[in-house]
């Protein structure tokens, strides 16, 4: 009897996945634990391991195609074994996603068998595994005998972002089918947030009827094309942010001379340690320091409540394929330049290769977006909710400036801070921006 390979449900909100690559061809021998395929979800790209030994008999969902979770996408079995045709559900693209249940209600989705008396039964190793990974046992669906969670269940589990909702928000989210997980937040989501989303979130996969209704006039060769899950998720996030935050962008010039000198003086010695030092890293260091001094900027705002974060988790907008993701580096305030440089490069590499962990994606407190390399001298970035501000970094341009009455040429760079006026007024924004400038223009102050 051949084993079915299912489209995994990697996390609470995933309803479908797109096969990026099959690591094995039909007819290849497969051992349990081999990489079998990589799948793109609305958040990350995951490599999925085979759960059975045998031969990859048949691939039902080819590369590039999307299929709903838990539908059969391939068969593994004995060589030559014949397998039934693909179940209808697998052949057609995923159906419109059901509203994702909020995390708070998620456990109701998992099998009941193993939770009598509220205790989640699991093998000792599964418990250890879940504990080490910080997974909540209760959310892991059990496939073991007597309904116990097995190690394999823990391994197949990808946790949902830890979203907390107010009861009212949870109800609304359910009724209106809002995917609350797009808030990657440590904060409690309130009614207002959900309502804010409803008007802007575009349906992840419009019902066919809706499509024809909204269809643009058909010209030869033109066809509405489904965008990637990642793009849809970006779209949702951006519109959400746009609707939620009344924002102002402040621009301040920086004399990059000292910054360039600093990099020049450290570059080689860092290189020896195999560390590539960029202006971004210096910028992050200074920003982190400034943020520790402006708790209201290193914060998030919700339902007229402000949460001031104890750590600076600096997000960095990273281009990825046709999209953009924002991984963040934790506790930057405590990191030295070398650590920041190392951490950042690793993070970017991970982001580009889809190796990011959920943890690397969530919990940011402030974001930096740099378009310098593209010669941009001014722009107004959009805040990465529920943060309160984002720093846009522009190109360094040799510019004639007046110093002590003399016109001199200096490498100048614009910093564009977009701040949420609900919390951050002009003066605070300016002071913050000015502080970063001071630190960049005179890095010794970092020691002060």
């Amino acid at each position, binding site marked *: 009897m051949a084993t079915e390979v299912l489209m995994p449900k990697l996390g609470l909100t995933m309803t479908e996945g797109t096969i990026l690559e099959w690591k094995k061809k039909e007819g290849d021998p497969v*051992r349990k634990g081999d990489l079998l395929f990589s799948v793109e979800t609305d958040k990350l790209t995951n490599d999925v391991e085979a759960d059975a030994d045998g031969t990859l008999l048949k691939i039902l969902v080819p590369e590039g195609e999307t299929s709903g979770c838990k539908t059969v996408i391939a068969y593994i079995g004995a060589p030559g074994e014949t397998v039934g045709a693909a179940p209808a559900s697998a052949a057609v693209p995923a159906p419109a996603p059901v509203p994702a249940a909020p995390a708070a209600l998620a456990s109701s989705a998992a099998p009941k068998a193993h939770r009598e008396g509220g205790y989640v039964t699991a*093998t*000792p*190793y*599964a418990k250890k595994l879940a504990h080490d990974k910080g997974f909540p046992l209760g959310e892991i669906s059990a496939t*073991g005998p007597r309904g*116990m969670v*097995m190690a394999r269940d823990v391994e197949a589990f990808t946790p949902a972002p830890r979203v907390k909702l107010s009861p009212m928000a949870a109800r609304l989210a359910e009724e209106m089918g809002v995917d609350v997980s797009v808030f990657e937040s440590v904060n409690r989501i309130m009614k207002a947030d959900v309502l804010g989303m409803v008007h802007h979130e575009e349906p992840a996969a419009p019902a066919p009827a809706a499509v024809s209704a909204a269809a643009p006039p058909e010209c030869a060769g033109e066809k509405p094309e489904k965008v990637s899950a990642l793009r849809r998720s970006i779209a949702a996030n951006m519109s959400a942010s746009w609707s939620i935050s009344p924002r102002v962008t402040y621009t301040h010039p920086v004399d990059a001379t000292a910054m360039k000198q600093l990099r020049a003086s450290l570059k080689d010695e860092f290189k020896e340690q195999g560390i590539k030092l960029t202006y971004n890293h210096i910028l992050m260091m200074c920003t982190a320091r400034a943020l520790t001094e402006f708790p209201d900027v290193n914060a998030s705002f919700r339902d007229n409540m402000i949460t001031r974060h104890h750590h600076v988790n600096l997000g960095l907008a990273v281009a990825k394929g046709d999209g953009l993701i924002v991984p963040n580096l934790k506790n930057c305030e405590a990191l030295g330049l070398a650590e920041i440089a190392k951490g950042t490069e690793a993070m970017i590499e991970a982001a580009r290769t889809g190796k990011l962990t959920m943890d690397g994606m969530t919990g940011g407190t402030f974001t930096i977006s740099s378009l310098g390399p593209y010669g941009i001298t001014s722009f107004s970035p959009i805040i990465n909710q529920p943060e309160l501000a984002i720093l846009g970094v522009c190109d360094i341009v040799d510019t004639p400036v007046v110093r002590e009455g003399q016109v001199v040429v200096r490498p100048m760079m614009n910093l564009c801070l977009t701040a949420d006026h609900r919390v951050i007024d002009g003066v605070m924004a300016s002071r913050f921006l000015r502080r970063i400038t001071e630190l960049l223009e005179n890095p010794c102050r970092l020691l002060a």
Partner: protein
Amino acid sequence: MSIKSYREATFDAMKEEMIRDGTVYAIAEDINGNGGTHGRYTGLGEAIGDPGRVIDAPISEAIIVGSAVGAAMSGLRPIVDLRFSNCIPCAMDEIVNQAAKSRYMFGGQAKVPMVIRAPDGILKMQGAHHTDCLEAWFTHVPGLQVVVPSTPAEGKGLLKTAIRNDNPVLFFEHKKLMAMTGEVPEEDYTIPFGKARVVREGRDVSVIVYGIMVSRALEAAEKLAAEGIDAEIIDLRTLSPWDREAVLASVKKTGRAVVAHEAVRQSGFGAEISATIAEEAFGALKAPVIRIGAPFVPIPMAPNLEDLCRVLPENIYEGVHRALGRQSDR
């Protein structure tokens, strides 16, 4: 190397040891008549050129074992044969209160180097008085050592160790082993007690067995391998002392354990093994520890009922599946 039956291999072991050491002698009922049960002693006296050291005993287990304890304490190395494990209880006191304790009670003044050979296990329709596997009792008795060989070669090496060993040793030999043949080294070799043998390496599940159950486990492993399940099989060889380290190491590797023996399941030695795993390899367990043994009844005579009391490859195969969570518990 040469192909020998278990009967021949253990015969060689005794012959070589009795020639090497004049203090070794064998005593049992019918030992000269038909060469003892299963003909394991046929021609032994002549083979060692000293028929006087192969002694016919009256039907009196108490005397056979008791006298051996006395002889051992006075410098000899008796090999005692009890014909059927079910005869052991007739000499239980001599074994657990005399043989096992004499050295300890007397502060090490005496030693009791003796071997008690006891054929056991289900052959065919011998009924309740000739078939029990009683090894568990003696693993609970400090002072005794318990050996359960699994092949002709193992039998030879372990029996030699048992004879040279200075402690009282119970040597349980499944009746189905007697005719089993296999490669047996010609040379003189011994196998240390307390060292298990990994019969087959595997990564998915540890199957812990001993005696006749080893070959049955291997049969099960073949079938499992065909399904891509890779079982590791451990032959304990000796139960007291037993190789905890080997078992724990294997279970920590595979995360799953199946313990099997032909003896009655309740309070059998399998309980000690799986209890130890539950204590000391707990965090590594990916599944319940599966324990397989005979049901809680004496062995019935009718063949179809008797079959229900055997532990066969199918039972181990099914147990492994349970350990893998392939099917839920019965």
